[in-house]
């Protein structure tokens, strides 16, 4: 048994509403799994089930091979970090860190040692005697992590720990969490709806929708080979461009009106001839050029040009829809300019329009 967390057939209903549906999830020892999905898809609910904060309707949960389905939260060997930090406002940082330990009747000296160690790891030593109200957002977040840290748990659960912070701080703390993970080697389950966080932090990402895991895979796999249309559309900002068409010639080519694109380079399953398919192209996998190349380019007209610092996002009208393309920021394009978009079919995704599953 090498899995740190095993979720078996987990179902959770709130009254008549089924929030998690027969879910299975294995997390390996030391793995960093990110739960990603739109608001209300059940991410927090799943996390709360793992922590024992919600009573599940059916199924089993194992942590380190132990069945903890009925165990109390503090008996599960988990630590949890909340979005709103949930620090105890009237206690100092030290009090916050040691409260759980004191309660577990850990000897004083040991508590102090643990607090000191956590403070060192998180670099909050000088803050130990302040109250949470006197801390900045990032510092509070660190204390919240520290509270889990002192308890020497095997599994860390994070519920959107960075979403209350501003962009700059967020990117700093992201790096810090990643480093922490590298240092502690704990198992971590991390909820977010920020893609950048998911992509940068995760060993594996579980993309959820409506209480069901849509795809569980490594970030690059999810980014490059999304399992279905939902995952493809959800991951990546700006979104993947979708072209609704059909495959012809036994799957040799994609056709949309006059446009035909060769699928020779496409990496996927058996394509065959299909009436309705959707071709997904990421903005950075399209190349803007002046010349047309039959079977590889799509003619387009520039609509708008959004410089974003390092690169620029160009919005174009192409194949009857709006598409976006990423170009270096030096390349300014005037609205109305006719151009051609060269498709890198090796990096494209093709979906069946009915089942929405990747072909």
């Amino acid at each position, binding site marked *: 048994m090498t899995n740190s967390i095993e979720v078996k057939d987990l179902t959770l209903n709130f009254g008549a509403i089924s929030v998690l549906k027969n879910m299975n999830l294995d997390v390996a020892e030391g793995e960093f799994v990110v739960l990603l999905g739109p608001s209300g898809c059940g991410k927090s609910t799943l996390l709360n089930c793992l922590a024992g904060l919600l009573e599940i309707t059916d199924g089993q949960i194992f942590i380190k091979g132990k069945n903890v389905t009925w165990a109390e*939260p503090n008996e599960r060997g988990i630590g949890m970090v909340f979005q709103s930090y949930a620090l105890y406002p009237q206690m100092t940082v030290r009090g916050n860190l040691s409260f759980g330990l004191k*309660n577990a009747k850990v000897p004083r000296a040991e508590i102090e040692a643990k607090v000191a160690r956590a403070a060192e790891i998180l670099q909050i030593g000088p803050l130990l005697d302040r109250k949470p109200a006197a801390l900045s957002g990032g510092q509070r977040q660190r204390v919240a992590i520290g509270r889990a840290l002192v308890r020497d748990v095997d599994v860390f659960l994070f519920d959107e720990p960075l979403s209350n912070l501003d962009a700059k701080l967020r990117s700093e703390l992201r790096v810090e969490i990643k480093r922490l993970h590298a240092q502690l080697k704990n198992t971590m389950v991390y909820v977010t709806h920020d893609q950048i966080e998911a992509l940068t932090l995760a060993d594996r990402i579980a993309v959820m929708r409506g209480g069901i895991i849509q795809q569980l895979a490594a970030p690059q796999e999810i980014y490059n080979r999304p399992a279905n249309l939902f995952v493809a559309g959800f991951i990546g900002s700006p979104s993947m461009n979708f072209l609704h068409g059909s495959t012809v010639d036994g799957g040799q080519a994609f056709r949309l009106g006059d446009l035909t694109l060769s699928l020779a380079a496409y990496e996927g399953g058996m394509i065959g001839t299909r009436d309705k398919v959707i071709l997904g192209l990421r903005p950075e996998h399209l190349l803007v050029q002046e010349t047309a190349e039959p079977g590889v380019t799509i003619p387009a007209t520039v609509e708008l040009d959004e410089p974003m610092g390092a690169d620029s996002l160009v919005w174009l009208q192409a194949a009857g829809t709006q598409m976006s393309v990423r170009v270096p920021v030096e390349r300014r394009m005037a609205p109305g300019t006719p151009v051609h978009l060269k498709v890198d079919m090796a990096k494209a995704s093709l979906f069946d329009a009915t089942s929405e599953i990747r072909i």
Partner: protein
Amino acid sequence: MAEARRVNRMWRNMNAKIAAVPMILTTLVVFVGGTAWTVLYSFTDSKLLPRERFVGFDQYERLWSNSRWLTSIENLMIYGVLSLVFTIVIGFLLAVAMDQKIRFEDTFRTIMLYPFALSFIVTGLVWQWILNPEFGIQSIVRGLGWESFTFNPLNNPDLVLYGLLIAGLWQGTGFVMCLMLAGLRGIDEDIWKAARVDGIPTWKTYIQIILPMMRPVFITTLVIVAAGIIKLYDLVVAQTSGGPGNASQVPAMYVYDYMFQAQNLGQGFAASTMMLLTVLIVLIPWAYLEFGGKKHG
């Protein structure tokens, strides 16, 4: 231009200023004016009608040598402390019980809250009746065969304050429970979760974490309950008339009796002034917390 600016400033938000007039008038004329008037006349020997014959601190000297006044003050302090402690403790306990996702919450809440709809006069009468040794609890228990049972607080000078307390708590705790319940419901759900993950037992979470977090609720409650205690009058009049003897006298009764019955306004005003002074002593720290604290924090 500076002139125009000032004029402009004056006329801006005219409606808001007009709307605040009732409040300003009330505070200035009634509360400040009335208080100042009262304090001023407390230094006179006014009898039935106010008159400006100043006698210095005579009224206060008499006041503080009057055994009824001293009893009243002592009673108010004992009753006040007990009442504050018990209302808040009971209110909080009940709110905690109500917060456990119980069944019939609506029913329980209505039961606890309805006494608040009744006036102190009614409260006093009913409890006088229930505590009456000839009809009430004492006679019932004796009727059950326990002949020596004695429960007659209203006629025992040592116990009469507890008799008042039973009635006062009956009337007021439901409302405090509502305040507390509302406060409990306003606490971030995540705090609870964090405490559970930390393995803190529920009771400990309430005492060590939730209680300190409810400070604003406690302050509101304190203001409301304390205001009620200082004004305590109707309940005493209805339940004990200050008796037996002077054992349940309270300052408000002293004020009223001396102003109107004894026709010694000066003495009544002096007693009022002392009460107001007490209020100020209680309120100044509060005002500091409420307004002063924010500016610096």
